[in-house]
């Protein structure tokens, strides 16, 4: 079974995020790590390939400055190899531009399944999976919290999150699935796996090789600008008390004052 897993390499969310003062978009100049949301995609891919009796998992990523740190994490988990598209013209790409690059990369290999997160931790637009599926002419099941292979590995059954529960959805492969966080517990790679990952192949592709014109991607291709950024009015905190046995009474009084009880 051949799976492509889309992975984004992002600034560590534990560090305070910064904006580029000129473009007012997220500053991505520091070291990048694998978006935790995509570790779920990698883990799902590993389990499906195991269930199918073997196969290949290619991690596909678009990142600045030839960054591969996040990809090595995915390779350490067990992915077979990675594809990276890195080009200065990609700076400022929007969701659609990103989808175009990922689609072109995935078209260069043959896959049964494309996996993504539902959204990235830093951009969280949530539209890349569906745009990517459309560009690849694939059906998609998004917001999947569980996936199983069926019909000898030629189709999948997924449980898709809804507002009030979930829908069981079936689809013949090839298809694209976006997975929700928490769908599985991502495996923690062993030291040996981390070392082995250093030798796994990462293929770099240029925009020219992918047949993508620079003006279709990057800030120019995004066809949108951030005109200004303003601080959000912060809520004020109020009274804070320490419970010494009767804080619940203070809450009850508060509820009475609000006429909630």
């Amino acid at each position: 079974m051949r799976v492509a897993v889309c992975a984004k390499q992002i600034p560590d969310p534990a560090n305070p995020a910064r904006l580029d003062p000129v473009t007012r978009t997220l500053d991505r100049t520091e070291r990048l790590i694998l978006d935790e949301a995509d570790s779920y995609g990698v883990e799902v891919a590993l389990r499906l390939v195991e269930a199918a009796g073997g196969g290949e998992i290619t991690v596909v990523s678009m990142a600045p400055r030839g960054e591969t740190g996040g990809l090595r994490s995915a390779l350490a988990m067990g992915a077979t190899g990675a594809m990276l598209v890195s080009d200065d013209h990609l700076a400022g790409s929007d969701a659609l531009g990103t989808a175009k690059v990922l689609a072109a990369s995935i078209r260069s290999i043959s896959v049964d399944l494309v996996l993504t997160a539902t959204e990235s931790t830093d951009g969280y637009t949530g539209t890349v999976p569906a745009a990517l599926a459309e560009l690849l002419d694939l059906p998609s099941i998004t917001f999947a919290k569980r996936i199983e292979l069926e019909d000898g590995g030629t189709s999948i059954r997924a449980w898709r999150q809804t507002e009030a529960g979930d829908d069981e959805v079936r689809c013949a492969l090839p298809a694209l699935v976006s997975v929700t966080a928490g769908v599985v517990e991502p495996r923690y790679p062993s030291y040996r796996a981390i070392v082995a990952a250093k030798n796994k192949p990462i293929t770099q592709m240029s925009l020219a090789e992918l047949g993508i014109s620079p003006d279709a991607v990057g800030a120019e291709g995004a066809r949108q600008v951030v005109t200004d950024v303003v601080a959000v009015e912060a809520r004020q905190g109020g009274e804070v008390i320490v419970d010494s046995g009767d804080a619940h009474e203070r809450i009850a009084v508060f509820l009475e004052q609000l006429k909630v009880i």
Partner: protein
Amino acid sequence: MTLLGRVWVVAESARGGPGSATLELVSGARDLGKVVELFTWGDEAALAAAVDVLGGYGVTRIYSVGDIGPALPGPLVAAGMAGLIGAGDSPDVVLVGASCDGRDVAGRLSAKLDRPTITNVVGLKLAEHPGLVAEHTILGGTQTARSRFTGPGPGIFVIRDKTFEARPVAASGVAASGVAVEVVPVEVVPVEVARLGRTGAAQVVARHVEAQKGPKLDEATVVVSGGRGLGSPERYALVEELAALLHGAPGATRAIVDAGWVPYSHQVGQTGKTVRPTLYIACGISGATQHLVGMKGARHVIAINTDRDAPIFGVAELGVVGDCGVVLPRLIESLRTRG
């Protein structure tokens, strides 16, 4: 500032009539464009309900791809819209709600039309230059970025719940622009979608709906929410009990949803529901910005947490530094005694 010509609002039609998200979007659309039209999917009964209600909200035409059966809406609805737009029947802007299906439709339409999207919109207004300016929050909800499209339209905006207020035309009779809005009979235009081929392969084979007691989370006036600080999944029962006592809805942070303590339908936050209750009680919730983004519109906030430095205390009107496992049972007992 000039109103746009035509605004398309994309939303599902349900048997019970248009949902609150749909009403919010069409109401907001009236302040952005002279003509507001709905692009929808649903069966005959749902369409009839939409026609019944939406005329009173200023919608003059409803395009429908009809009953989609077991198919997922994304590919069909995007194909229907792209077909019309390609044939010259195009709006100036497309508004889609930020639901799972909404994101699918927006993503596919974006790819089909080669038009960009601006998502997580929490504000949308007419701009001085022709066009719209959108607001979305960034940097963990601490900053608002204003952005606009720079290329040819139609642009696609994916809009979060409760960005606009649902307002029937009869209530005001006049849009914010000062133009009188008259209620006219709604025209229904069926949209044929040619066979989809591969992109339409996904089919729903079963729908599981959780039994729901009490008010819906995004409509409740009281929300009692739990987070990791509760300590254990069993403690969530206290959250549910307090919510029920206050005739409210139970909510949850992404952390405990991901941990499997409660279903996603309970999730409040950036990637969950946005709630604007009169009262939000945060139990064992640290107040990560991912969560605050979903509930900071609450009128009053009470927080209970063992950590004095938890960010939630910065937004709570009343904060209690204490153990939910101790405070909640006592509060519940006290409320029961009060009757």
